[in-house]
Structures are given as structure tokens and as C-alpha cells.
């Protein structure tokens, strides 16, 4: 039904797409795969009318189709849920969902009642925890993603394109969404699905197109290939058998306790969390979205105040009034929300790399840009960041590379404690591996790492110990042999089969 052929797109000097092709049939659920920066979002935006391709043609039902604006795409039945969302923060959820498609009473007058009821219907269908009257900007990221999906569905499209909408969703939300999508595809809806999570891709999609460097390099039946094949297509190399860097060989007792939290309360989300982290440990925080992991990390970091409990850092009780104090004491923090809390988009790679290091210096300190440049180049090489040059703005990097940049930012200061709030959201497999390696390296060098993640695989792979959050409390601590997918999922859903050993 939909065919995109030989699409190319250059942004200034960057080639985002070159000769990418894609086809989609009614009732098909096709995955669009590729490493960070391979051009997936760009292709999606071309189809959605947000990006004008330099060349290439799009056919719909065999006829050439000119998509000159998002409204063109929508009028032809193509609806997109964008990776970076297309919500207006200060419009209500209902207004957002029906934006551009408001039902009208008399000519031109928006029928607000109908807007609300249509929106409420879609929200219920997607099981979104939000009311139509909430402001979109007030929602948590997962709810925002789902509203973005609802917004695409509101157009009753023939072709639905979902660009990494599951990145901030949790397991159960993903399952519900998938059930819906399968049902709709059976009724003839064509779906293009972009995700970095292979389990999702293999469970939902029948076929996949793989992009590499903006080129469509393969189109596969997913039941005929395995993960390694897909990674091969994405990267051009077979994934080598993967050597974990092991942390220091010292036994647990010898390692110094870096962070000891007792009964921490951050109303209303965190209701008594007790946890210990030692130098060289990587500790995972698991749980469904919004169980208090984020608040817990941010309260330790001094970004939000905590209501009760005790935080001991380096042996002394602390309550940081601002992130700055935490940073000065050797704590680092990485957010998965790159755009809002991570990168300085218009500043250079160098400046991004040295942000944390400079933050510890006095304001009047004089810099030697040469030195910084040289060191930045070294770091870029070491971290294997793909960037035009150290002077390029960070916004010219792909998502995964931006995140590596931010990790490099903290590598440069070697914190004693590193807090990560879902840091690999939307980062591709290989970049994610590299990031894990970096974290292991930091741990090996004596940093205590506290990482929360919405990706269970990630936690199971990297964390020595996993604390599972449920309604603001720790419901389970998994380590050693208890660290299995099943145990983790069960604990996340609130089934107490593993008793917390610590605290209490």
C-alpha cells in the first residue's frame, strides 16, 4: 500500500538518509530498525511531512504521493507518533489529542464536549493514567508517550507510524499497547514500529527494515532471523561474544560503603527506602514507571528535598540543598531525558564534555581552550563518540552519541557516586553496550553506580544487585541467582516472593 523509494536527505553536511526504501502492506506490522543516527526518525518524519526529502518518491496505493506538510500526510491517512513527541505542553490532554482534527459544531466552532468525550474514549482504550483536562506538560513521560499514540489514533489512520513510543513505557503498558495494535492491524491497519528493544520488536512485528547510515540495508522476515542477524545488519559486524569487565575482585565487606540510605521519604512518591551502595558496585533500581525511583535518585542528588529519613554519604549524614553541593562532594547524575536535562544543544561537543568539570571550578578560573580541545578529542576517541568534530554542536549528534557524551561528562570528573535515571532510554543496542562498558569501567575504578532503568534486560545484565521499587517502597532485592527475569517482573508487579533482606 505504502512505498517509499530511494529517499535521501541531507542536513547541512550530515547525511541522514541516502537511498532508503520501505514498503508497507495493509495489516502488516513492520519494524524499522537501525542504530542511533541511522535515519529512522528522519524517514518517519519524511512520511509524516515534517521533513522534506532531497530526493526519492513515495507511492500510496501505487500512485505517487506528494507530502508537502504534515496535514498532507494526515489527509492521506498517515498518522505519526513522534519520538520527540508532538504535544503542546500547555494545552489539555483532550485538546492535544484532537489538535488539528477538532470536531466542530456550527461552522468552525469547536465542540469542546465532543473533544473531551473522544479524548476520554481514546485514553480509556490505551489505559492512560490521565484525565482529558490535565495539561499535557504535567503528565509523566510514559503518559505523554501514550497520549502521543492516542493523538495519532485519533486520526483513524490507514497507516500508523510509532517512533520509539515504547522507550519510556513499562512492561505492562507495552503489553497492553501491543494487544491493541495487533487487534487494529487485523482490521487492516498498517503499522510501522520503531524501537531499540529487540524483545518488543520480535514479539510484535512480522517484518523489519534495517537502516544503516541512512541506507536501507535489509528487509527481513523476523521469524526467519535472530537477534544476532539483525545486529549484523544494523552494524555490519557480528556481535562478538561479549566480555564483561568485572568489577574489583575485593569481597563485598572490604569495599567501603559510599552511600547508606535509611528509610528515605520523599512525599508523595517515596515512602521509606533503605539501601546501601559500596564503592565499585553497580546497583540497579527496578520498578514500573513512577514507583519512586526517579524521586529517590533526585532526592539524594539534592534536586528535590526529602521529607524524612537519613542519607549517609561517605560516612556522614547529608542533605544536599542543590545538585551543585552534591557535585562538589563527588556525586554525578545522568538523566535519560537528554533534551530537557542532558545536553546543551547549541554548544560544542567539547563544552558538553567539560560541563561537569567546569561546574566544580570557581567562576573566575581562566580556561585554556587548546587544552580542553585536545582533551576533548582524546575523550571522543576513547568513548568512541561519532561526531563531526569536537567543535560541532551537540545537537548534530545522534541520540546514542549524545548520551555517551553525557556519560563522558561525568567520566571526566570521576565521581564517587554516579546516579543514573533511566540513562539508555532510546539508545541503540551497540551504543547501550558501550555505555554499559563505560559504567563498568567507572565501577572498576571505584565509583558506586546507582542506575534506575525501565529496561529489565539492561538491569539484569549490568547490576550486581537490583532493588525493586513498588509504590515507593522496596519490595524485593535481587542478587546472585535470584536475579532472573521472572523474579524481577513478578516483583515489579507487587508480588512479594522475594523478601527484602536489607533495611527492615
Amino acid at each position, binding site marked *: 500500500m505504502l512505498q517509499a523509494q530511494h529517499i535521501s536527505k541531507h*542536513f*547541512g*553536511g*550530515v547525511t541522514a538518509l541516502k537511498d532508503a526504501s520501505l514498503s508497507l502492506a495493509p495489516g502488516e506490522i513492520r519494524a524499522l530498525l537501525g542504530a542511533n543516527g541511522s535515519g529512522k526518525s528522519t524517514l518517519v518524519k519524511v512520511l509524516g*511531512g*515534517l*521533513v*522534506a526529502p532531497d530526493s526519492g518518491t513515495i507511492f500510496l496505493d501505487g500512485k505517487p504521493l506528494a507530502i508537502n*506538510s504534515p496535514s498532507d500526510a494526515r489527509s492521506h491517512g498517515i498518522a505519526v507518533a513522534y519520538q520527540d513527541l508532538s504535544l503542546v505542553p500547555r494545552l489539555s490532554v483532550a485538546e492535544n489529542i484532537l489538535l488539528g482534527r477538532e470536531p466542530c459544531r456550527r461552522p468552525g466552532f469547536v465542540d469542546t464536549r465532543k473533544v473531551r468525550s473522544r479524548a476520554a474514549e481514546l485514553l480509556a482504550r490505551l489505559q492512560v493514567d490521565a484525565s482529558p483536562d490535565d495539561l499535557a506538560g504535567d503528565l509523566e513521560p510514559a503518559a505523554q508517550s501514550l497520549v502521543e499514540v492516542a493523538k495519532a489514533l485519533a486520526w483513524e489512520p490507514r497507516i500508523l507510524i510509532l517512533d520509539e513510543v515504547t522507550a519510556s513505557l513499562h512492561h505492562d503498558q507495552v503489553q497492553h499497547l501491543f494487544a491493541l495494535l495487533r487487534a487494529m492491524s487485523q482490521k487492516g491497519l498498517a503499522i510501522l514500529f520503531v524501537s531499540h528493544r529487540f524483545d518488543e520488536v520480535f514479539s510484535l512485528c512480522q517484518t523489519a527494515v534495517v537502516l544503516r547510515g541512512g541506507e536501507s540495508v535489509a528487509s527481513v522476515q523476523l521469524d526467519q532471523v535472530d537477534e544476532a542477524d539483525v545486529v549484523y545488519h544494523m552494524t555490519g559486524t557480528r556481535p562478538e561474544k561479549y566480555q564483561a569487565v568485572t568489577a574489583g575482585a575485593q569481597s563485598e565487606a572490604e569495599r567501603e560503603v559510599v552511600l547508606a540510605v535509611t528509610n528515605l521519604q520523599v512525599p508523595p512518591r517515596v515512602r521509606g527506602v533503605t539501601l546501601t551502595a559500596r564503592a565499585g558496585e553497580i546497583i540497579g533500581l527496578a520498578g514500573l514507571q513512577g514507583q519512586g525511583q526517579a524521586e529517590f535518585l533526585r532526592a539524594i*542528588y539534592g*534536586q528535590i528535598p526529602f521529607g524524612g529519613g537519613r542519607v549517609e554519604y561517605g560516612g556522614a549524614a547529608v542533605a544536599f540543598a*542543590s*545538585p*551543585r553541593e*552534591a*557535585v*562538589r562532594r563527588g556525586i554525578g*547524575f545522568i*538523566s535519560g531525558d537528554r533534551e*530537557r*536535562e*542532558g*545536553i*546543551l*544543544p*547549541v*554548544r560544542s561537543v567539547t*563544552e558538553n564534555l*567539560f*560541563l*561537569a568539570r*567546569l*561546574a*566544580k*571550578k*570557581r*567562576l*573566575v*578560573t*581562566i*580556561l*585554556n*581552550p587548546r587544552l580542553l580541545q585536545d582533551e576533548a578529542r582524546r575523550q571522543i576517541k576513547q568513548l568512541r563518540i561519532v561526531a*563531526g*568534530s569536537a*567543535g*560541532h*554542536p551537540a545537537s*548534530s549528534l545522534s541520540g546514542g552519541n549524545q548520551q555517551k557524551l553525557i556519560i563522558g*561528562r561525568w567520566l571526566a570528573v570521576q565521581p564517587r557516586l554516579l546516579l543514573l535515571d533511566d540513562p539508555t532510554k532510546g539508545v541503540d543496542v551497540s551504543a547501550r553496550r558501550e555505555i554499559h562498558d563505560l559504567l563498568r569501567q567507572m565501577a572498576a575504578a571505584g565509583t558506586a553506580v546507582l542506575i534506575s532503568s525501565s529496561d529489565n534486560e539492561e538491569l539484569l545484565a549490568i547490576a550486581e544487585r537490583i532493588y525493586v521499587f513498588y509504590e515507593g517502597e522496596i519490595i524485593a532485592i535481587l542478587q546472585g541467582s535470584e536475579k532472573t527475569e521472572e523474579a524481577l517482573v513478578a516483583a515489579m508487579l507487587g508480588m512479594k516472593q522475594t523478601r527484602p533482606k536489607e533495611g527492615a
Partner: protein
Amino acid sequence: MSKINLNWRHNQIFMAGLIAVALFIVGGLVNASFLSPTNIGSILSMAVLLGFAAAGQTLVVIAGGEGIDLSVGAVMSLGAVLAAQTMAGQNSNIVPALLLVILSGATIGLFNAAGILYARVPPLVMTMAMANVVTTIQLIYTHGSPVGMPAPIIAFIGSRRLFPFLPWLVVLGFIILFLMQFILRRTVYGQQLYAIGSNYNAAYLAGVRAGTVKGIAYILSGILSSLAGFWLIAYNNFVFVNMGAAYVLPSVAAVVIGGTSLAGGEGSYTGTLIGSVILTALASLLVVLHTDEAGRQIINGLVLILLLALYTRQPAIRQ
């Protein structure tokens, strides 16, 4: 080829430079003596004055968060009044005058910063209201009759020339340019200023004292504007109330024409100075055109629109 992307920012400065040169050429075509060394020197020293007025403006615009300082003019006026009164024509009084001028500018900047950071008033209206208060205070203080005059050395720098095309004020302009660029590019403060302008939250979470850095930008803006007032009386050699009032909106225009984005996070003082040269050359050119005041205003606006349309256009959303 990726250089194009990288140099976009520099391109805007380059474009501004080209336009400045083009204006001089047009001026020369209208009247050859427009290009005489003396006239070029005159335009440059007027441009430097505007450049001083726009120095603080550059900082607060870079600081982002809709940063803008409309109190520049009022603070300049107050600085001028205090400078003249304290110097009273004596070289020995230069240091106290400078101190007083800096102190007064810093105080007003502090109030602006407090309003913007703590009361969270948008900078545009906060500084606008502050400008009114400062103007009133100036009137109460002087009763409209400021006294004094610049010290001879200062007046010399303000109004004499090294070469016909190179007034001392322009030499001073280069020094300020060097200092400003040094602060912006070579100090931790400058880097952090760009950082908070580019992404306030990210900088805050990386441990930057974001509020403090922003507040300092407004305080520096107060100080720089007050010093601009100091040089304004040096240039004019006499003092009157509201001397700086005419510099407010041009200072914003100079900053933007110089390639500093109103969205914050990028920009340079070099650009601001070139923007000042463009605006001053344009004004100077308009004076000698054969038209009345109404015509001058119309042409001034049209040329501005043309300039803005040439290169301050925002990128289209559809790429």
C-alpha cells in the same frame, strides 16, 4: 562540507560584517566624503558607544530564559550623572567616580536579578519597570539638573583621536571587546553562561550554579551599562538627564543583528560590535539622505526589515 553547519554562527557575524561594509560603500556612493577617514572614525566612535550600551545586553541575551535588559538606558543615564558629578572635571576623581558608577550599576543589576530569579518576573517587563524606577530616582537625585563634567583625561579619551580614522574611544572599544570575549570564551563563568542559556536544567543538574550565573549576568549588565554611561559623558563632554534613553532598543537590535540568538546560549560580543557599526552607519547615512524626519523613520525601518529578512530569519519547521 560539515564545516558549513559548524560555521553557521560565524557566518552570521561574517554576514553582518559584509552588510556593514556594504553600508559604507552605499554611503560612499551617495557622497564620497562619507568614506573619509574622519567620517569613518566618527561613525566608529559612535558605534563603540552603542557597543558599550549593548555589552551587558549581549550577556543577558546569551543567558537565555527570554533574557533581555531594557534598563540599559536608564542605568546609563544614572551612571553618566554620577560619573559627571563625582569627577567634577578633576583627574584625581576618576577612581572614585568609576567605583561609584560600578557600584550603582551593580545595585540596579542586583535588583533586576532578584526580580527575575526570585519573583520570576519575565526579564522584559522586570527590566522595563526597573528602568522607570531608575529614571525617577535619577530625577529625584538631580532634580533634573545634574552637575559636573568628565575629568580631562576621560574627556580626552572620549572625544579625541589617535588617527583621524581611529578615535581613542575605538581603541577603548577594542580593549572592551578583548575583555568581553575573554570573559565569554576563556573563563569558567563565560562557559557556564552559554551553558545555562543553552539548557538551563541540564546545566543546573550538572552542578552549575545556574541561578547565580544568571544573576551575575544581570549584575554585569548593570555594571557595563553604567560604565557605558561613564563613557557617554566622556564622549559628549557634558551631562544632562536621560542621556542613555535613546540606546535601549538599538542595544537589543545591535545584539541580534550581531548574531546573538534571542533564544540564548549562543552569540558573541564581536557580533554585537559589528551590529552597532551597522546601526550607526545606517543612522549616519540617513542623516545625509534628502528626506525629512518622517521619511528618515520610514527608510530606517524598511532598511532594518531588509537586514533582518536577509539573515535573522529563523529556520523553517519543515526541514
